[in-house]
């Protein structure tokens, strides 16, 4: 099986974004970056499928030069090679899903993959669009929010998560695109051997053939309004705990 995994580099979850002077973007120079978590699960699933069915796993990303880091990491975890669609117009964290999917489609199209995996959404913008738009651009059938993948050539059967603890199985012909839900598997981490081996693996840089126009634009960023009056309790841990327990007993009356 030839499997592509599309990975986005996103700011770390711990990062507190600050709005920049334009009020439309964030101060990216303050950010540190990591592999989008759902994409890490997609990568792990691809590696497991390769272990079962043979073939190769190709990590793909679209982004500025810094995004190469997530490809290095994917290679260290076991991906065979990588493709980096690099372009200045992919520089901003706020890049629209149509543009990203268009860039990825250019990289993936010629490779004749059997399966394209990606995370269900990104931890930064969370639009949950790129994977599905990519499926359309590649002319592939797709399924989203998947918690199990069974390859039964020439088909793939996947378990989709629905709301409220429900699931359903969906079968479709290969080649296909599947977006992966976090928690589908247990992640492996790169070993020292993997990190060393990654240095010899290829990251092919490609320029997008033609980027489509963005369909959405962030015209402003705001700090979310508070919906509740939060009573912040300060002091030493012992004092704060004492005050909190007292308030829960005598003010909120939720404990005896």
């Amino acid at each position, binding site marked *: 099986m030839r499997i592509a995994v599309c990975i986005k580099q996103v*700011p770390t*979850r711990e990062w*507190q*974004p600050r709005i920049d002077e334009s009020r439309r973007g*964030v101060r990216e120079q303050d950010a540190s970056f990591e592999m989008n978590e759902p994409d890490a699960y997609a990568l792990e699933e691809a590696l497991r499928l390769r272990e079962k069915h043979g073939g190769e796993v190709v990590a793909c990303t679209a982004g500025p030069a810094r995004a190469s880091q997530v490809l290095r990491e994917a290679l260290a975890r076991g991906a065979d090679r990588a493709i980096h669609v690099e372009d200045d117009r992919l520089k901003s964290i*706020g890049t629209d*899903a149509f543009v990203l999917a268009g860039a990825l489609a250019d990289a993936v199209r010629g490779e004749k993959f059997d399966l394209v995996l990606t995370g269900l959404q990104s931890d930064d*913008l*969370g639009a949950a*669009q790129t994977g*599905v*738009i990519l*499926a*359309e*651009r590649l002319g592939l*059938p797709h*399924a*989203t*929010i998947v918690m199990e993948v069974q390859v039964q050539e020439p088909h793939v059967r996947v378990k989709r998560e*629905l*709301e409220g*603890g*429900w*699931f*359903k199985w*969906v*079968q*479709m012909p290969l080649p296909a695109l599947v977006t992966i*839900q*976090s*928690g589908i598997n*247990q992640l492996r981490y790169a070993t020292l051997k993997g990190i060393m081996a990654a240095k010899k693996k290829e990251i092919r840089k490609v320029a997008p053939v033609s980027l*489509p*126009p963005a*369909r*959405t*634009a*962030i*015209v*402003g*960023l*705001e*700090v*979310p309004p*508070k919906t*509740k009056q*939060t*009573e*912040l*309790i*300060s002091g030493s*841990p*012992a004092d*704060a*705990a004492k005050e*909190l*327990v007292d308030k*829960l007993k005598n003010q909120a009356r*939720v*404990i005896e």
Partner: protein
Amino acid sequence: MIVVVAEQQRGKLHRASWEAIAAAQELAGDEPIAAIVLGADTAGAASELSQAAVSAVRVIDSPLVEPYTPDAYVDALEKAIGELKPSHVVLAHTYRARDFAPKLAARLDRALVTDCVGIRRGEKTTYLRPVYQGKLVAEVAAEGEPPHFVSVQIGAFRGDAARRGPAPAPVTPLGIAVEPSAIRQKAEEPFQEARQAVDLSQAERIVAVGRGIKAQEHLALAEKLASALGAQLAASRPICDSGWLPMERQVGSSGQTVAPKLYIALGISGAIQHVVGMKGARTIVAVNKDPDAPIFEIADYGIVGDLFEIVPAMINELQKA
């Protein structure tokens, strides 16, 4: 015209479809609204939709759109949109909409703004949606030709506030033939995993842990607090993803929805996927070292600090009494 794509399952309308109608009414101004429902047996859902203040309910009744597949929905809705020529298409941001809406928007090459929590009408209408795990809200403009697709976050618009009409809206079929060869997915019946042994929805008090707990062995500390409070232990998704607690203890959009008297969130940042499952709690306490964590926006009481210092002090305090 504004089109609302409603959602039904076995003839029953998804309650978030009312929220999509409420959003469409806010967006519409004087524009008429048509609600579309697809399925093999749409009568029940269509009749419920006809109570809304909409100009029409249009049904796509076809065995080919039941059970749901994204290919059938995209084919049917592409044709429906071609006929109705709406300015906007509004959907609830359900798991189903997340599956087909980006494909439909991509097929038509039209803008899609997902997971919206607000609409700002103006010369150029914009949409508010959370970004960076809810730490910021982005105001987003849809670019290019209409229709613009908008999906609204579940719970962000009030379904019970959607205006009802003075008389039922007419229900008429849309004459659309779904192309069988367009459908590549084959869907099986939905199912639930083994019956859940823990029913958190009945719990009076819940102590929930998130990423801030850092390691599985630290769960014992949270357990100790839970037992001192007579509370159930729960977690946000990443904890269950890591296998530290069983999935049945997960609170959030993909887990259980709870409404206890007391909910103590330990090291939980407050991502929307978690918050939708617990915002109905009467009293919410957040302990988090990050003062900017979104959980503090919905907490009644907050302590900014190290949970590994504060929780032992709380246990100590509770045991004193």
